[in-house]
């Protein structure tokens, strides 16, 4: 993981909090991950795990009044994005080098703007090559065809398109400037299963063709298995396990939370009588447990888990933050 010449993104110890009137929500608590060019990383976790906050922090589109990045670096092509001034972020990076695909295509598109204009907008503001309006139109047409929509439909408004088509438009908006990194935030959660299959197949194909790196945020381990090279599993604002898909899906040296996630899924191939879910609930993000954040729900919880936050046990590229695999250096807990 250290061949830095084709390293694209390196997030180190990212911490984000949301400050509400009297509460502080600890949304992301020291996330580190890295991504090479052309690679796909799956970011997996349940509601409130901090997946989306991490993604928004990378793109710096967090709500600026409440959210605050308290610590960490986000190194992208050698620059720390957290220190780049806002205007450079807007001109060189956001939408141009890093693009994002949002979850809900119904609300992610401006309802009173033609879809073609919405796709062209990013191009117009990042027009480094000084393309003529005609060239921009051509590029919009090309991108639309890339995502499988006839170019004539660029004159349509979002309400004239079906759900799947809207999500294709959202993807076209992300792709039109040919970014090097795409962050896809649950891109198919709002879609029906057959449409999901269409969209996923298309994303996979395009990503391969364009060589774009991708962070795929999802809660669906099935999608990860199909799409990703590496997987990071998040729980309560931390990455508790990270590695290649093969390592994670092999079941060796598995974090009990990961085991629980797999146990919660009914198996399609063989008949199971019972599911083995994780008992309990997500911890309150304003008041996280000490030690390992998963300890109140963990079926294999030990005394040390309640006090000391586990470090990573490393085996190849596979890293697990769990005392069961003891090797990691125990960090004293912050609280």
């Amino acid at each position, binding site marked *: 993981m250290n061949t830095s010449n084709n390293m694209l993104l390196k997030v180190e110890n990212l911490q984000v909090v949301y400050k509400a009137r009297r509460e502080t929500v600890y949304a992301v608590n020291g996330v580190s991950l890295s991504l090479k060019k052309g690679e796909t990383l799956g970011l997996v976790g349940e509601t409130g795990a901090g997946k989306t906050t991490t993604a928004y922090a990378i793109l710096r589109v967090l709500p600026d009044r409440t959210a605050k990045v308290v610590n960490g670096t986000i190194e992208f092509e050698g620059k720390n994005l957290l220190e780049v001034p806002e205007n450079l972020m807007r001109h060189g990076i956001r939408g141009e080098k890093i693009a994002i695909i949002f979850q809900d295509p119904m609300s992610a598109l401006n309802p009173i703007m033609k879809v073609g204009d919405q796709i062209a907008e990013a191009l117009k503001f990042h027009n480094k090559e000084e393309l003529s309006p005609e060239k921009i139109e051509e590029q919009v047409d090309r991108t639309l065809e890339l995502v499988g929509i006839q170019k004539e439909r660029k004159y349509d408004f979002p309400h004239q398109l079906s759900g799947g088509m809207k999500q294709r438009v959202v993807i076209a908006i992300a792709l039109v400037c040919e970014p090097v990194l795409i962050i896809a935030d649950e891109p198919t959660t709002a879609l029906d299963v057959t449409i999901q299959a269409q969209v996923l197949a298309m994303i996979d194909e395009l990503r391969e063709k364009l060589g774009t790196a991708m962070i795929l945020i999802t809660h669906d381990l099935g999608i990860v298995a199909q799409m990703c090279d590496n997987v990071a599993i998040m729980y309560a604002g931390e990455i508790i396990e990270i590695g290649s898909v093969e390592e994670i899906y092999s079941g060796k040296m598995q974090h009990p939370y990961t085991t629980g996630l797999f146990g919660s899924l009914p198996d399609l191939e063989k008949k199971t009588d019972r599911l083995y879910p994780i008992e309990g609930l997500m911890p*309150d993000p304003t008041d996280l447990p000490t030690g390992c954040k998963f300890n109140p729900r963990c079926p294999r919880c030990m005394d040390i888990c309640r006090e000391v936050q586990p470090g990573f046990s490393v085996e190849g590229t596979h890293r697990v933050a769990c005392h069961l695999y003891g090797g990691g250096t125990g960090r004293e807990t912050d609280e």
Partner: protein
Amino acid sequence: MFMGKKSSRSMSPLQETIYRFSQNKVSLIGLAVVILLLLVIIFGEFVTPFENGVKQNIRIRLQGPSAEHWFGTDAYGRDIFTRVLHGTKYTMMIAFPATFIAEVIGIILGACAAFYSRWFDNILMRVLDVFQAIPGQLLALAVVAALGGSIFNLVIAMLIARIPASVRTARSIMISLVGQEYIDAARSYGSRDYHLIFRHVIPNSLGAMIVSMTINLSAITLQVSSMSYIGLGVSPPTPEWGALLSEAREFIITAPHMIIFPGIAILLTALSFNLVGDGLRDALDPRLRD
């Protein structure tokens, strides 16, 4: 984020609303003023007897504010402070019953429209369309023109002017509530219509209805005074605020204090109703705040 508070006792939505409202200083001031106004109606006589506002004394006419006459005196030498103070009850006597009745009618018709939808709703909407095509002020004027300007008639005039808006608000609240899945659920376990209305729909609509009520109170306060001002409401010498201002018109140059104080009374009343309404709305739905 959506986790419950770890407070030892759980609060019902009502308690929660009261708690949030009590945290809002501006709205509390509004509430304090409203309570003060109600106290004035009850205890006004002890502060300054009504007699002071009636007895005429030409020698001290049109005097500016002084220690003896806080708000000055009018063209007949009557104490304006007393007149403004006792004017409170006329506004309230009109605004409260009119608002309350309008709201109750709103809830009844709204619930009927939401439950016995289609035809009843259609008819109701057409009737509302007609009433709302006439500006409320004009509707009230027409009623007063026909019936005359007594307090009772003004209540009726305000009712007719405000009912369309109340019904429309109530209707939209009720329809959105009836669309909620818990109504379907209640029906599925055998609730009769009156169960649905009284156990689910009305309790859930009350918050929003009270907000709309405070807005109505404010609007009626303004409307009543302007009716009296143009000479079609409560008429002088009754010290209704609008009537006071109507009397003050000719002295706009010589005695501006006659204009300022009743006007501030109207302003403060309407303002505090609005503040209470805003505070309630925020307390009911904290998401609207930020």
